[in-house]
C-alpha cells in the first residue's frame, strides 16, 4: 500500500466533511457482520481455512467490484507492526479484537477511511462505515451497498429463520450494529446524564465509551448503539436509534442553551481555564487531556473560544492516544514521557491555530 497515510495522519478524511449536528454528534457508524457459508467461523477455522476465507474476501476487493468506492487498499495484518495496528484501533478503523487476536486477519480500506472491511475478526467479514455528524441512514445505505456487492461474489451463511448467521448469538439476524458517538458535556454538567442514559438502556439500546465494549466514557463522549439484531428489520433498527439519538441531541442542545443563559460566566471560565492548561501544561495524562479537550469543544461550539476550530480538536482526539503519540515521536515512550509528549503536542497544535 505504499505510503501508509492511514497510520501517519490522525484525522481521517471523512472527519473533515461538513455534516449535520456536528456540534453534538461526532460520527455515525454502521457495521455489518457476515460469514461465508462453507467455512467454519474464524474461532473454529484451521489456519488453512482462515487463509482461504481471507483470500476469497480480499479477492472481491481486488476484482474491481468495489471500484465504485474509489481505490480500496488492502493489507494483511501480518504486514503491520504492533504500533501501526494500535494506531488503526485509535482511529476506529479496526477493532481491538482484529488487532490483537485475529488469525490471518486483513483489512480493506476505502480512500476516505470511511469504509473499513475487516476480515477474520470474530466473523469472516465485518463491513464498517463511518460518516461525520448525525447521518445514520446515509451510513446504513453505504454499508448495505457494500454488503450487496460481497453477496454477489461470495455465498453468505444465511438461515431462513435466523437470518444472517454470526459467531456470537448477539449479532444473529441482521448482523448490524449501528451507533452514534455523541459529545454530551452539558448533560453531564447539569447532572442529567444518568437519568437520560438509563432511559436509553430501557428502550433496548446500549451506551458505551469511545472505544467500544468495556471502555470507559472519557471526555464526555458516549457511544449509543442498538442491542437487538433479530426480529426487527434494518430500517426499524436504524429508525429507532435515530429517533432516540435525536432526542438526546435536543436535550443536550437545550442544556447548553440553559448553561449559557444561567451560568455563562462559569462556563466561560471553565472553558478558558482548560484552554490555559492545555496551552501551557508541561505534563498531562490522557484522562485529563480528554476532559479538557471536551471543555474546549464545548467552548468552540458555544462561540466562547474563537481561537480553536473543530478540526484541530478532532485531530487531537486521536493524536493524544498512546499509540499515536509513540508513532509521531518515532520511539518507545515510557508513560511519563508520554504525558510530557502529549502536553507538548497539544500546546503546539493549539498555538499554531490560535
Amino acid at each position: 500500500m505504499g505510503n501508509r497515510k492511514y497510520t501517519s495522519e490522525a484525522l481521517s478524511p471523512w472527519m473533515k466533511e461538513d455534516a449535520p449536528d456536528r456540534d453534538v454528534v461526532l460520527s455515525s457508524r454502521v457495521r455489518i457482520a457476515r460469514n461465508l457459508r462453507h467455512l467454519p467461523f474464524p474461532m473454529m477455522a484451521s489456519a488453512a481455512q482462515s487463509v482461504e476465507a481471507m483470500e476469497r474476501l480480499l479477492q472481491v476487493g481486488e476484482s474491481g467490484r468495489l471500484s465504485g468506492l474509489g481505490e480500496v487498499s488492502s493489507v494483511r495484518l501480518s504486514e503491520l507492526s504492533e504500533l501501526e495496528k494500535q494506531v488503526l484501533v485509535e482511529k476506529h478503523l479496526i477493532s481491538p479484537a482484529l488487532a490483537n487476536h485475529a488469525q490471518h486477519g486483513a483489512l480493506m480500506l476505502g480512500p476516505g477511511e470511511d469504509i473499513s472491511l475487516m476480515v477474520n475478526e470474530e466473523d469472516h467479514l465485518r463491513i464498517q462505515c463511518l460518516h461525520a455528524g448525525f447521518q445514520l441512514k446515509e451510513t446504513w445505505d453505504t454499508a448495505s451497498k457494500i454488503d450487496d456487492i460481497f453477496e454477489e461474489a461470495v455465498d453468505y451463511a444465511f438461515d431462513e429463520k435466523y437470518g444472517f448467521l454470526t459467531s456470537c448469538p448477539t449479532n444473529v439476524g441482521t448482523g448490524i450494529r449501528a451507533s452514534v458517538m455523541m459529545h454530551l458535556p452539558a448533560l453531564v454538567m447539569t447532572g442529567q446524564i444518568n437519568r437520560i442514559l438509563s432511559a436509553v438502556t430501557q428502550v433496548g439500546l446500549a451506551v458505551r465509551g469511545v472505544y467500544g465494549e468495556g471502555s470507559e466514557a472519557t471526555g464526555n463522549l458516549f457511544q449509543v448503539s442498538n442491542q437487538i439484531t433479530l426480529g426487527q428489520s434494518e430500517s426499524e433498527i436504524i429508525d429507532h436509534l435515530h429517533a432516540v439519538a435525536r432526542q438526546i441531541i435536543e436535550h443536550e442542545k437545550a442544556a447548553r442553551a440553559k448553561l449559557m443563559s444561567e451560568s455563562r460566566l462559569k462556563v466561560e471560565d471553565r472553558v478558558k481555564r482548560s484552554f490555559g492548561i492545555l496551552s501551557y501544561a508541561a505534563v498531562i495524562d490522557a484522562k485529563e487531556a480528554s476532559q479538557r479537550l471536551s471543555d474546549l469543544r464545548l467552548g468552540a461550539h458555544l462561540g466562547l473560544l474563537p481561537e480553536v476550530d473543530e478540526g484541530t480538536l478532532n485531530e487531537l482526539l486521536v493524536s493524544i492516544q498512546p499509540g499515536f503519540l509513540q508513532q509521531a515521536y518515532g520511539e518507545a515512550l515510557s508513560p511519563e514521557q508520554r504525558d510530557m509528549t502529549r502536553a507538548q503536542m497539544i500546546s503546539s497544535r493549539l498555538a499554531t491555530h490560535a
Partner: protein
Amino acid sequence: MTAIHSCLRGGIKVVCQECGQRPATLHFTKYINGEKLELHICEACAREKGELIPGTSAGFSIHNLLSGLMDFDPSGLAGAKAKAQAQALRCEGCGMTYGQFSKLGRFGCARCYKQFADRLDPLIKRVHGNTVHVGKVPKRAGGLVRLRREIDGLKREMQSKIEGEDFESAATLRDRIRELEREVQNG
C-alpha cells in the same frame, strides 16, 4: 444508572446482602424512578443477579452472560445424565460440542445453528426477544425466501390500497404478485 462507591463504608466491612456470608465488595446505588436503592453485595451474587457493573467486573463480558443463559434448563427436569448428553452433542460441521458452545458463548460455524437447534430458541429469545429474522434477505442465497417475503409484503400493500379505495394501484400490485408467484412455481 449505577453509581459505584468506594469499597469501605466508614472503615467497616459490610456483609453481602444476598448470601449474608461473603463480604460485600460491590456497593452501588440504583435510582429507579427517582427512588434511591442501596445495594451491598459480593461479586458472586452480583453475577448471579445479572448486575452489570461497568468497569469493575473484571473479565465479565457478554459471553460470560450468554453462557450463563445457556446452562439454563427450561424444564428443570433434565437429570445429570441428560445434561451430560446435551453437553456432548457435537456439530458435524466444525466439531464444536454444545458444552464448548455454552462455555464460549459463540458458534463455531453456520451448521452449529442447525445442530444445536433444539436448544437454541430459548437463548435467542432471551437475547433478542424474538426468534425470527425479518430483515434483509440475500439475493442469491436467499432465493425463494426472498421472493416469498416480497410477495407477502406486496399483498399487505395491496390490501391497504384496497382499503384506501385506490384500486388502480391495487391492480398493478396484483399483477406484480402474479408474476412473482409464477417465478416461485418455476423455482
